[in-house]
């Protein structure tokens, strides 16, 4: 079969629409329970999706980008995304698990071993979505360095772009450290050689000796190389600077085009920046799905009413039927899509029970997982060779 699509679902709270938690099917009381997350991920797995992502932040949710508000009509609070992914890992067998980590405030050493461990627990189905955390109030939660004044309202101006570029350079260093740590153990470093009494072959353990502008890390990792060798690294980007990070450092970039033309332009721009490095590009879409287009539009209207404002998003908001969405996905012609369900579980089940069968009928989506899949395997990516292994 040719031209198979790849599909991921982005999970966040009660869904991406701020009014979602008030819908009849929503389970807002369960957002902090393991059962809730297990149910969602198992549903996504029933649809044989490639992956789920888990959003995260080191600050409270807010309607105001870049600042805290005190609204009490929105979902507030969230659990650590890596731990949610780990909690569901032993319950699943097919789907990729991709938690968000905040590179600006966390230690690359800790994150590297956390994602490696997730890969062990999920037998090769771990990924990570690297995000920068630039909001001043989140910096105040850590207080370990001066807060450079990043001003969202002037994001287009040269000084702010420079600042942004620095943060993304730090992000690129971060990914480099994480990746080197994954490689810091060769796959066959554990030897258990009774004759010499050696448990490991230390010649197969490597110092990474990373020295950068923001941090230096010695290595090796305390955790052996994970099953995938390199778990999947992803990032979301909306403009040139994040595109550079996607191109230089990730395996998969999520972008937010509004049309087929924009989708094509963005993915060729990233390919150009990647200069021969293989990077997949998927589009993000917020989806409101129902059996008829009218029902979807009505529900979106109801969600807006419940939220008290008309919902806007960085990604295109699609309201329609699963078949119409299938048309769009084929027309945009990207390798894959990360769908953000506006309302959980409703729009997730529309994906797994409406969209997926439709794509299967069209012969562009898998009908089952391969046995013992890895996330890289699902995406058709090789298990990378270890950079430290001498040929």
């Amino acid at each position: 079969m040719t031209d198979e699509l790849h599909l991921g679902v982005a999970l966040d709270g009660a869904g991406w629409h701020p009014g979602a938690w008030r819908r009849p099917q929503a389970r807002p009381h369960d957002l902090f329970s393991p059962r809730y997350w297990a149910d969602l991920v198992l549903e996504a797995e029933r649809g044989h999706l490639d992956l789920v992502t888990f959003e995260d932040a080191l600050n409270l949710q807010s309607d105001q980008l870049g600042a805290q508000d005190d609204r009490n009509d929105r979902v507030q609070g969230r659990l650590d995304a890596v731990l949610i992914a780990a909690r569901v890992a032993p319950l699943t067998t097919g789907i990729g698990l991709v938690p968000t980590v905040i590179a600006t405030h966390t230690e690359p050493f800790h994150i590297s071993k956390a994602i490696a461990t997730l890969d062990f627990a999920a037998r090769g189905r771990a990924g990570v979505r690297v995000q920068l955390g630039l909001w001043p109030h989140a910096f105040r939660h850590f207080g370990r360095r001066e807060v450079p004044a990043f001003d969202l309202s002037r994001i287009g101006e040269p000084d702010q772009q420079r600042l942004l570029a620095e943060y993304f350079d730090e992000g690129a260093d971060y990914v480099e450290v994480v990746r080197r740590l994954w490689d810091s153990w060769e796959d066959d470093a554990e030897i258990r050689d009774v004759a010499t009494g050696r448990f490991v072959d230390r010649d197969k353990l490597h110092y990474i000796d990373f020295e950068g502008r923001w941090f230096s890390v010695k290595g090796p990792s305390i955790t052996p190389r994970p099953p995938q060798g390199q778990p999947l690294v992803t990032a979301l980007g909306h403009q040139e600077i994040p595109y550079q990070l996607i191109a230089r450092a990730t395996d998969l970039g999520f972008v937010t085009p509004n049309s087929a033309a924009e989708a094509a332009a963005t993915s060729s721009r990233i390919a150009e920046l990647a200069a021969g490095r293989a990077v997949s590009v998927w589009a993000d879409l917020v989806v409101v799905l129902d059996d008829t287009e009218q029902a979807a539009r009505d529900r979106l209207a109801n969600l807006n009413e419940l939220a008290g404002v008309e919902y806007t998003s960085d990604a295109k908001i699609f309201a329609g039927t699963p078949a119409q969405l299938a048309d769009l996905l084929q027309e945009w012609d990207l390798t894959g899509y990360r769908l953000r369900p506006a309302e959980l579980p409703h729009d997730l089940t529309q994906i797994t029970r409406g969209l997926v069968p439709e794509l299967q009928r069209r012969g562009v989506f898998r009908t089952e997982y391969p046995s013992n899949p890895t996330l890289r395997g699902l995406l058709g990516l090789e298990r990378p060779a270890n950079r430290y292994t001498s040929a």
Partner: protein
Amino acid sequence: MVKQVHLAAHFPGVNNTTVWSDPAAGSHIEFDSFKRFAQTAERGFFDFLFLAEGLRLREQKGRIYDLDVVGRPDTFTVLAALAAVTEHLGLTGTINSTFNEPYEVARQFASLDHLSQGRAAWNVVTSWDRFTGENFRRGGYLAQEDRYERARTFLQTVNELWDSWSGVSVVADKESGRFLSEAGPGRFRHEDRFFDIEGQFNVPRSPQGRPVIFQAGDSEDGREFAAQGADAIFSRYATLTEGKAFYEDVKGRLAKYGRSRDDLLILPAASFVLGDTDAEAEELAHQVRRAQVSPQTARNFLEQLWNTDLADFDVDGPLPSFDPAVEGDLISKGRASVRQLAKDPVALANEWRAKAEAEKLSARDLVIEVTGRQTFIGAPATVADRIDEFVQQDVSDGFILVPHITPDGLAPFVDQVVPLLQEKGVYRTEYDGTTLRDNLGLKYP
């Protein structure tokens, strides 16, 4: 009622006590090993599973130490995954207060407590060395005398974060559109020498309110830290006299912090070897000790005390006749026990030589003798009697068992000793409650 025994299980991490050469030894890194180990502990109604931490691979003579089991998973991640395959077992993680930040650690433990429905515990350790710091952004800046102060304010800050949602609940009233009982949750402000932070914590109060706090330091500062704010201590004293002295010392410190003797549990690490008869267990124990201390391990251990390269030294002969080098860098890095050895190495070497001569021990045999930490050896009935006796005599409130075979070494204990403790009426036949606090008999904050 007679004092009840608490039991927990330590999945051994980096160590030389795991007999990895035994054909029964499995993977110490695959998740299935952790799962099997945890489910065995739960079958035995254990209170919790315990994980240690070490954030840099050990070195000796400037090279990675290659004789012990090495490599371990990330603590939070593996504990969260274990929450999916167990129902009652507490999940205790050792997490360093030097190479982490309060907002993040508070969030991870609160998340683990939610995701395990009230089974999270934190063993606060303060390891500080520059060597380990080379893996972290902050480096190894922390002076030795500062580490417990940072730990104290770290824990205080984390408690403030956990408490910052007190009284705020998720009402999620779909009709009125009110999500929380109060707007603007999680506010905090903390300023001291180590932390100057403020804002809003973003995890709602977890099932235990605050996860259970463990401490494992042994210094004066460490004991005081435990008496002030810990719920349990993971100690190294599992013998009758040492254990009793430690127990009395620490429990005696509680009153000045307005706490009662029941507010802090003392749980030493303990190993065990079981046989059909006591004699058979002794014989097995002897074999285990020899497997734990290979000739290479014995030589490396002596190098740690002598602080000298002993590459050509024959461990089947007598101990080195020359004295340890007291000058210069320690030959071994990333290993806490070396600090003990380094206190007065010449005196310790003399003591060992005297012992070896008196008991006609080779160098290797001597190492086996002084490092052997087999706490309970015997037929199941002997071991059950001894554990009961120790707990009734306040050597401890129970034990954290460290099997020498991973992951299945716990099973014989669960199958053979636990039923005997139950018969004696000193051990539970079902879990007391749903949270770790319930099972440890600890108050809710």
